[in-house]
């Protein structure tokens, strides 16, 4: 079976690239290992900075895609063999697909918060991750502690698993800062009487509207931002959480009880992507993200002709940036295919 392009991963990057390649008249096969396409976007309630429902963006992406490309769910590549100027993608089902180019749109995993044992995720019931909170918000049910009560004080811990040598991740995950601000506002919307804290090292409000959201969080929603990295947490008898932090603005240690603690988990590379990268002989960085030829102008090219990369498999990106990245990848692939003819 011959296809022009095989896209590995049906998340935001894969869906976008598939649409653009279809626009350009290319024959595409989109592989998604989960039961449906959409990637992590399926789990997000509302998106920063305008808090548009994630489902709406997913719907848009799916609608643009239409039925112009072949999509295979519950399917991922086992082996990929390089030939002269083509590839054979061997699916886990055993089927072999010949193609001219492969796009790695494999996305990311969330940092496993249990690895930061000092925060007690998976040990204390009232320590949750930003993804858990997103699920809670998406369900439409009220935000509660594990005992089903409305929390009167909620804390957000920034940079969980990011900017952390101990976690093996020196990089910044970029989106957690603004996610923390967004979710803090959402807590205040649900529970106006609650007190909300963000514990941060730096707040990296780098993109348009982010700083304004931070300002709104402080001014309108009275959210407190306390500079310092939470060093450890312990559980009280009533299952509330006592945390220790240096209040670096007063240079003094600080102790505080919260009813719910949200860990803002960052991006990590998927082990499966590393496996495929090794198989293909494309390089990975010290941060385990896929390397591209050039960060400025050839960011969708791997070192290997015919193998392209888009989206968060090459580093942390927002959804908007992923869409732009994948669109560019499609154009670059289209140009590459022309050189083969």
């Amino acid at each position, binding site marked *: 079976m011959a296809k022009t392009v095989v896209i590995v991963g049906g998340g935001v990057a894969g869906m976008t690239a598939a649409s653009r390649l279809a626009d350009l008249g290319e024959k595409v096969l989109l592989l998604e290992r989960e039961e449906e396409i959409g990637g992590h976007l399926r789990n997000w309630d509302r998106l920063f900075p305008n808090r548009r429902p994630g489902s709406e963006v997913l719907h848009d992406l799916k609608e643009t895609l239409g039925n112009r490309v072949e999509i295979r769910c519950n399917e991922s590549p086992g082996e990929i063999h390089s030939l002269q100027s083509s590839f054979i993608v061997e699916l886990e089902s055993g089927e072999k697909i010949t193609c001219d180019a492969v796009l790695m749109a494999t996305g990311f995993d969330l940092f496993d918060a249990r690895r930061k044992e000092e925060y007690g995720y998976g040990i204390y019931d009232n320590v949750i991750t930003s993804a858990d909170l997103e699920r809670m918000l998406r369900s439409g049910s009220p935000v509660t502690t594990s005992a089903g009560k409305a929390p009167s004080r909620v804390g957000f811990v920034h940079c969980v698993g990011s900017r952390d040598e101990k976690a093996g991740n020196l990089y910044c995950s970029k989106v957690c800062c603004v996610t923390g601000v967004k979710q803090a506002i959402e807590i205040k919307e649900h529970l106006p009487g609650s007190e909300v804290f963000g514990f941060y090292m730096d707040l990296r409000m780098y993109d348009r509207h982010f700083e304004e959201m931070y300002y709104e969080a402080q001014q309108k929603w009275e959210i407190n931002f306390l500079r310092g990295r939470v060093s450890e947490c312990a559980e009280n008898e009533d299952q509330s959480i006592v945390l220790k932090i240096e209040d670096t603005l007063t240079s*003094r240690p600080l*102790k505080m009880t919260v009813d719910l603690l949200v860990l803002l988990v960052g991006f990590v590379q998927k082990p499966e992507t590393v496996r495929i990268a090794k198989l293909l002989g494309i390089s990975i960085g010290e941060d385990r993200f896929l390397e591209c030829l050039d960060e400025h102008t050839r960011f969708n090219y791997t070192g290997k002709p015919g193998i392209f990369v888009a989206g968060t498999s090459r580093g942390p990106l927002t959804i908007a940036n992923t869409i732009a990245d994948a669109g560019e990848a499609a154009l670059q692939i289209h140009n590459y295919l022309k050189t083969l003819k």
Partner: protein
Amino acid sequence: MINFGYTAHKERLIDYDKNDKRVLEHLKKHEPSVLTCIACGSCTATCSAGQFVDFNIRLVQTLLRRGEIEPLKQEIRKCMLCGKCILVCPRGVNMRNLILAIQTAIDKLK
């Protein structure tokens, strides 16, 4: 009694759960601009009093936020109300009114 030279040190820990937030509540009503402080330190750098005495006006908002009333009382006494800090603040915090409103709130506590 023999003096062995031991003294009890003052607790350095900020115990947020126990601290008094009444002054902060007063400020939320009377000078809400304080909530937007990003602790950049512009105010402290330009402060007239801070050039000569141990006064950090940036710290005032932090102490207020943490409910550290005793050090807050000591700190605001050092302000000369010149208002230079207001000119440099990137978030438009009205520091002069902040100091005065803190004093009013503290007086009310008595």
